[in-house]
């Protein structure tokens, strides 16, 4: 790394002198051939420097990417075509697409896929709607807006483990749990959050919503501040109410941003792992005694690290990857459609 700055330092100034100067001194008599050659060499060096140095500068990222991104991806793909156990990763037996085909009849996989979808839905939709509303409120001129903007981001800065621990206590089965206590005040019986199919999913979703709403709100806020004020002024002149301004000016201008947050949230929801893992007491990878909140990420972890079937868990990983690619394509189609209709 230390080579790079010194390299540019020696190369750039010298050519800066020699490369630009000759034109200024155009009238001066030509130097002897040796000096001419030196100059040509230097300018060639300069061209090479311009051409290749950027590659050297970006090389570390790509080297890291190959080592930690591409290689694991390809290795996982290779492993997914084999029967291979975590304890003996060198002992591979070729099974072709068996690991993928068995997923089709694997009820635990479908259950995890269904849970991932429902948890994703009940966390992403309210989360983005709330973020939009919050961003709109923060966009108004209000006292201490900086404080609120920072405050809204604090859940995002909290570690999943810490947040989930608190939520586990809040959603505790007994009357000691804060949520059940609050429900008791309004006369509702205590709910066994973790053991119900829907209640567990709602509880997991609430952790996700709590963590990510502020993050998305700030993205929306940034996009809102880029909307020209003239639009609002002319809308106000035309007699549009605040709500009408929000609907007809803010939302259309935010369309690309909304799409972006949708995609990012969908990817996040597909890979949901930490919250459901820690929400189950004892951090068991089964997602509750009935697998009621086991997501794809958890099932992958269970197969790979708990049951030690590296091949099968690699197949799940690749299936998740393909699902995300599909979602990406869908997003691309939608954004094209929006652009065309707009």
């Amino acid at each position, binding site marked *: 790394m230390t*080579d790079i700055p010194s390299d540019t330092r020696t190369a750039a100034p010298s050519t800066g002198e020699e490369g630009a100067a000759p034109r200024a001194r155009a009238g001066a008599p030509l130097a002897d051939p040796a000096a001419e050659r030196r100059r040509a060499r230097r300018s060639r060096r300069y061209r090479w420097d311009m051409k290749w140095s950027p590659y050297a500068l970006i*090389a570390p990222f790509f080297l890291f990417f190959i080592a930690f991104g591409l290689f694991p991806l390809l290795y996982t793909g290779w492993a997914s075509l084999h029967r291979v156990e975590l*304890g003996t*990763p060198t002992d591979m037996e070729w099974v072709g697409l068996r690991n993928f085909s068995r997923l089709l009849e694997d009820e635990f996989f479908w259950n995890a896929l269904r849970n991932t979808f429902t948890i994703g839905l009940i966390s992403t939709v309210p989360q983005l709607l709330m973020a939009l509303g919050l961003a709109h409120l923060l966009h108004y001129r209000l006292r201490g807006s900086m404080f609120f903007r920072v405050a809204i981001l604090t859940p995002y800065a909290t570690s999943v483990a810490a947040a989930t621990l608190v939520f586990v206590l809040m959603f505790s*089965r007994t009357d000691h749990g804060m949520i059940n206590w609050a429900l008791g005040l309004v006369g509702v019986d205590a709910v066994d959050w973790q053991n119900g199919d829907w209640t567990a999913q709602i509880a997991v979703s609430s952790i996700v919503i709590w963590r990510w709403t502020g993050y998305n709100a700030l993205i929306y806020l940034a996009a809102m501040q880029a909307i020209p004020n003239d639009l609002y002024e002319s809308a106000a002149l035309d007699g549009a109410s605040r709500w009408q301004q929000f609907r007809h000016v803010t939302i259309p201008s935010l369309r690309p941003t909304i799409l972006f947050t949708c995609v990012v949230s969908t990817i996040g929801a597909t890979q949901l792992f930490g919250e459901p893992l820690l929400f189950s*007491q004892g951090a068991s990878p089964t997602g509750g005694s*009935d697998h009621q909140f086991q997501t794809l990420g958890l099932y992958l972890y*269970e197969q790979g690290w708990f049951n030690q079937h590296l091949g099968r868990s690699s197949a799940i990983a690749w299936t998740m990857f393909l699902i995300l690619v599909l979602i990406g394509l869908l997003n691309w189609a939608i954004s094209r459609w929006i652009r065309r209709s707009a």
Partner: protein
Amino acid sequence: MRYRTRTSRTAVVLAAATALAAGLLAGCAEDSDEPGGSSGGGGDGGGGKGRTTLTVGVFGAFGLQEAGLYEEYEKLNPDIDIKQNSVQRNENYWPALLTHLSSGSGLSDIQAVEVGNIAELTGTHSGKLMDLGKTQGVDKGAYLDWKWQQGTTDDGKTIALGTDIGPTGICYRKDLFKKAGLPTDREAVGKLWAGDWNKYLEAGKRFKEKAPEGTAFVDGATGVMAAVHGSGKEKFYDAEGELIYKDSAGVKAGWDLAAEFAESGLTAKLQQFQPSWDQAFSNASFATVTCPPWMLGYIKDKAGDKGEDQWDVAAAPKPSNWGGSFLTVPEAGKNKEEAAKLVAWLTAPKQQAKLFDKRASFPSAEAAYDLPEVKDAKNPYFGDAPVGQIFAKAAEGVPVQPIGPKDGIISQYLADTGMLGVDQKGTSPDKAWDKAMKTIDNALDQ
């Protein structure tokens, strides 16, 4: 020619970047074994001469360090430093150990192994571990025979030496027993259910009739199930090493009894080692719990001063074993010989007795039972119960069960996706059984 200088320069830059990346990689992959940070300092790292640093990989609060055994060994061997790497949960420790063993890197000089995983180690990874049976100072006769066998492969290679075992008793609350009209003396309580787990259930039903408001007889159904499973002749594997979890009589007996506990409302519906379980100890929400020696310390921690002299320990209906560990020395280690010596010392009867005295980990070396630390041990928190004698008696009655490579996984799924549902959700036992069997089949690729 000029081009080449330029190219080679670029190459140097690239090489430097690669070297940096490689350096970082190596930094991530391997824990440094240099004794730089450890006390004493000076001298080279782990070579033949000078100071040697031995690393010990353990899970949870293993107790060796806490009992001061490392310190003592360092005093006896001035050129040895001992460093411990601890991972909190065995569920995380074990897969990491497996991957490290298969790659031959990232290993500590000594690695601890939990009893639920030992059969997988002797079955598939014995080639990567040292034969400790021949180490100087190791006396096979000092150990309980079944414990010694668990760490030995079929062809007689002893790759793991036992540290502690977990012979169980039943811990009970005298105050709750008194209020429910049951005897409180530990002899009388033991007689209440001696020899038969069904008598334990009967005692529970008697307890329930007059039990104080808001208290249950046991903590949860999964604990009962595990205790019964540990006391049978067979569990998940038969003597030939075949999987029999579906129709083993011992497994079914444990399941049925635990389900009856749940359905009779004798449980506090708790999952063990969870915050709510800890809380229940301090709130005195349940009256009995299956109790290996290490549980005594746990209860004392969680029940606190309020529980002083309220708890006592009696013999279990049938002796069973819950937990226990082993120490191994990987072949890929840098200081194998020194490590083997340390393992031999740590697992010798005298040190095991000290561990029991300080940390209540019960010795797996039978020879330790006659040492005063064990024989005369009394636990003041538990009404001066003669714990050494109670558990030594239980240890001698522990059945020799065949254990297999997937014991840990099967028992966890049987509890987490099976009995827990019966206990907490009220799922019918038959339905929960089917569900657990499906999960286990899927996990074992059956």
